[in-house]
């Protein structure tokens, strides 16, 4: 008996050690698209503010929207902006609205793992749509080999990999496909979670990258940094001006150039298939979802403080992880919009 009591006391003591009353803990959840960036940011921010831990869980944009609407997390994150129905649902549930704050610019890249192919392939919109619709099934299909003269493509079956859960990365990808392929638009549509004609499902950008890396002849979409961090080859995509563009800081920034000037007040905008010779066609903003009202003042101030930091110092960390900085006009607009968070 006494031994058990003693063990219990030690255990509780140890557990209590982690009970730091003075520290504030904020929880956010959502997109895996910017997860490498956010994990770096929140880590750095925690180093600068030891009393504040912003815990971000990458469960997918769908999860971010759902959980912030449910109120089980303090803020959300998504790369597919909330649509009007979702905004209304939030408003109805809470009595106040929710605000979108763009954080960085990123890109969905077509990553592949073809035995023997290490070069960058060129993909046309028709090829990508055809592969994901299940109509183009082999790597040496003319739609793929056409723009890639000189590359020996095997006759193997293509293994398509997509997301298994509600994902903003999916939203960006399907948003693009809906713009460039009428068939995709009517058959599948755009959304965070679609009825995929073919392919394996994997959870999170992390798992899609992992699956592509482990599966020969696979083809899927991931955020740029995942392909880079894992040394995965990814292809160029033909943009609306006809040029094959590779995703990088310059091409993603070019895609946002037009939107920067005409950014709507609620920051919800799509920049896929953007005009411009150097624009990468599958780029996107990604947003933090911040409630317009906080009952807990310390949480509100903490989040506002973070957003301010993110828009200033935070932007200096983005390029090391291959995310493009926000255009200056957008930053200025966001700082003003931050005042709407009460």
């Amino acid at each position, binding site marked *: 008996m006494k031994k058990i009591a003693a063990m219990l006391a030690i255990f509780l003591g140890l557990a209590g050690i982690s009970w730091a009353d003075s520290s504030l803990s904020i929880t956010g959840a959502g997109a895996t698209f910017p997860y490498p960036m956010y994990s770096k940011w929140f880590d750095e921010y925690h180093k600068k503010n030891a009393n504040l831990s912003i815990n971000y869980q990458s469960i997918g944009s*769908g999860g971010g929207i*759902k959980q912030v609407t449910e109120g089980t997390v303090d803020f959300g994150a998504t790369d597919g902006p909330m649509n009007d129905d979702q905004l209304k649902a939030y408003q109805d549930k809470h009595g106040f609205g929710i605000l979108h704050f763009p954080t960085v610019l990123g890109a969905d890249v077509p990553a592949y793992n073809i035995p023997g192919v290490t070069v960058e392939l060129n993909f046309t919109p028709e090829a990508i749509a055809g592969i994901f619709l299940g109509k183009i099934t082999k790597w040496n299909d003319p739609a793929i080999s056409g723009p890639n003269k000189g590359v020996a493509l095997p006759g193997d079956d293509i*293994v398509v990999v997509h997301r298994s859960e*509600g994902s903003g990365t999916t939203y960006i990808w399907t948003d693009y496909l809906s713009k460039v392929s009428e068939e995709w638009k009517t058959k599948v549509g755009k*959304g965070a979670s679609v*009825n995929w004609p073919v392919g394996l499902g994997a959870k999170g950008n992390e798992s899609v990258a992992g699956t592509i890396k482990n599966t020969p002849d696979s083809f899927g979409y991931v955020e740029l940094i995942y392909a880079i961090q894992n040394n995965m080859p990814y292809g160029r995509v033909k943009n609306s001006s006809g040029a094959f563009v590779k995703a990088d800081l310059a091409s993603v920034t070019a895609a946002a150039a037009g939107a920067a000037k005409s950014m709507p007040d609620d920051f919800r905008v799509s920049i896929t298939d953007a005009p411009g010779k150097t624009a990468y066609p599958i780029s996107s903003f990604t947003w933090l979802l911040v409630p317009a009202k906080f009952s807990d003042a310390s949480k509100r101030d903490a989040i506002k403080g973070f957003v301010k930091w993110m828009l200033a110092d935070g932007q200096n960390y983005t390029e090391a992880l291959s995310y493009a900085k926000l255009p200056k006009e957008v930053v200025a607009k966001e700082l003003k919009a931050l005042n709407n968070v009460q």
Partner: protein
Amino acid sequence: MITFLFAASVVLVTVLLVFELWQGSVLSRHKFGFNFFRTSVWDPIFEQFGALPFIYGTLVTAAVSLLIAVPLGIGAAIFLAELAPARVSDTLEFFIDLLAAVPSVIYGVLGIFIVVPLMRQYIQPALKHSLGFLPLFQGPAYGVGFLTAGIVLAIMVIPYIISVSREVLLSVPRDQREAALSLGATHWESTWRVVVPFARSGIFGSIFLALARALGETMAVTMVIGNNPTISASLFSPGYSIAAVIANEFTEATGELHTQSLIELGLVLFILTFILNGFARLLMVATSQRGSRLGHP
């Protein structure tokens, strides 16, 4: 008195759980009715939810796992109960019980890093080569899919079949064996034609138990099944199971209908495992009663 309260709360919690599952799926039950079990479209955008692919995947992987685990398990149980000297039998049983304690997620990790590459590089091509005329073994070799999930599940449920079957085989009265042997049966014949049939209900009970476990497995399955709601005759095809889709989509099902459809899937799974567990217990009780009724002290 106090202990009654504790016992009663166990009942209360169980009732509450069933109630929550029932209430939590009211929207989807009313909207889809029995069509829920007949449609195979799972489309969150157009809000069409049909459970068929998940039920199919759950049943197929369970069936594959049993096809592998039952012969192996019963074989091992026979060896442990009939052939092995007591000490060896007990030691091996000890190890097999440890196998039952390995958590699902660790099977999942081993599945991803070891079974999947093995399947993709060696086993699936070999099956395709030799048995590829069967629709079962057609299609590209992804490595993940129904077959892989079935194999991983088989490893997970074998300990249950072995330990329960071994118990019931050991409890068969000695006279049965001796009678068979005295009539001139070989060791195998006495085992297979007398002892095993005697313990038949208990063995079936163990199979139901294993089946119930296989149906409810989440982590190991979602890591190796491919997460694609397809119904396909091919075992190489990626699929989905009820538990896996709940794990993947629950935290982010936007829209009440989506969430409630997932909860309805949970209800279905619950009912399935409930029925199977019930059968299992009935069968095992039946065997032990039979053994004691025959005058064994």
